[in-house]
């Protein structure tokens, strides 16, 4: 792949890459950094890359790998419970937030595997086969993760509604 081809291709996926990185890392700065780092790594290997349909999947997969590595490293330095746990959200975070914003917070509280599959399936519109290729899991595992995430969101939503 030539330099200009690479730039054209990668610019098409900027939004998707950033959103996927953000869904894993939750921090905007970390997401930006992850995307730039992955672009750099891919740029180094651009001559080996083919501009076929797998390029998008390859980009997303690279983001996933890098972001998960970053999470692991962060967890080694600090108690990074929020990335894996489904712990409760502090009450002050809910103040003055509408239902949509609360749903977004619930979404952030999901375990990383469920968050990734929901982001790819529901928010970015990928099919289960594509999700499985990006995350390197089976189609069935992708479906199970989506299902578990949706169920958890549904439970949280019901709790919110019943609590008024």
């Amino acid at each position, binding site marked *: 792949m030539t330099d200009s081809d690479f*730039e054209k291709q*990668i*610019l098409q996926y*900027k*939004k998707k890459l*950033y*959103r996927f990185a953000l869904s894993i890392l939750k921090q*905007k700065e970390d997401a*930006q950094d992850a*995307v*730039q*780092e992955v*672009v*750099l790594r891919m*740029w*180094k290997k651009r001559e080996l890359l083919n501009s076929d349909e797998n390029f998008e999947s390859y980009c997303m997969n690279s983001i996933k790998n890098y972001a998960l590595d970053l999470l692991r490293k962060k967890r080694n330095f600090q108690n990074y419970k929020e990335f894996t746990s489904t712990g409760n959200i502090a009450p002050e975070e809910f103040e003055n937030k509408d*239902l*949509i914003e609360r*749903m*977004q917070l619930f*979404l952030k509280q999901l375990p990383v595997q469920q968050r990734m599959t929901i982001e790819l*399936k*529901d*928010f970015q*519109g990928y099919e*289960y086969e594509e999700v499985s290729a990006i995350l390197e899991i089976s189609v069935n595992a992708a*479906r*199970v993760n*989506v*299902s578990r995430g*949706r*169920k958890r*969101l*549904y439970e949280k*939503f*019901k709790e919110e*509604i019943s609590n008024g």
Partner: protein
Amino acid sequence: MAKKIKIAEEFLEGKLSVDEIEAGNLENSMDEEFIDTYRKVISKNSEEEIPNFNLFEKTAFQQKKERSNSFKRTFSYAATVVALIGFFSLFFYFSTIRKQHTQPVKIAETQKEVIQVLLLFSEELNKTLKNFDEATTAFQPFADYKNYSIEFNNPIKNFKINEL
């Protein structure tokens, strides 16, 4: 009338996507509200602008770094070559000058040595000729003395004893 969808079975199990669920087609108002909120979250997420960051920031930095490193490498290589050439030039220059200075002294020394050798040779030659002459005289056969003229060769031919 369309059959009411059981949200727990269809959506939460991951069999349907949120776009495939039509409004008013769900079992109860709670499910309706959940799907509606979920849809709004997706819509809000996709409409949200991503930060305007340079995707190739790290790539550009890396390229700059590589260029700088390449320049440094080339410069140090060139500097080494120049230093080596300079060193050898100086070496040859000084060795030539030294040679030029030492040449007249050397010539004089050689001349002196040659003269001494010639003198020694001449001395040795004289000695050898003398020895040869004596040896020739001493060992010549008696018959050769037949024609020996005492008158001619006698050194005391004209020696007068009375005049002593």
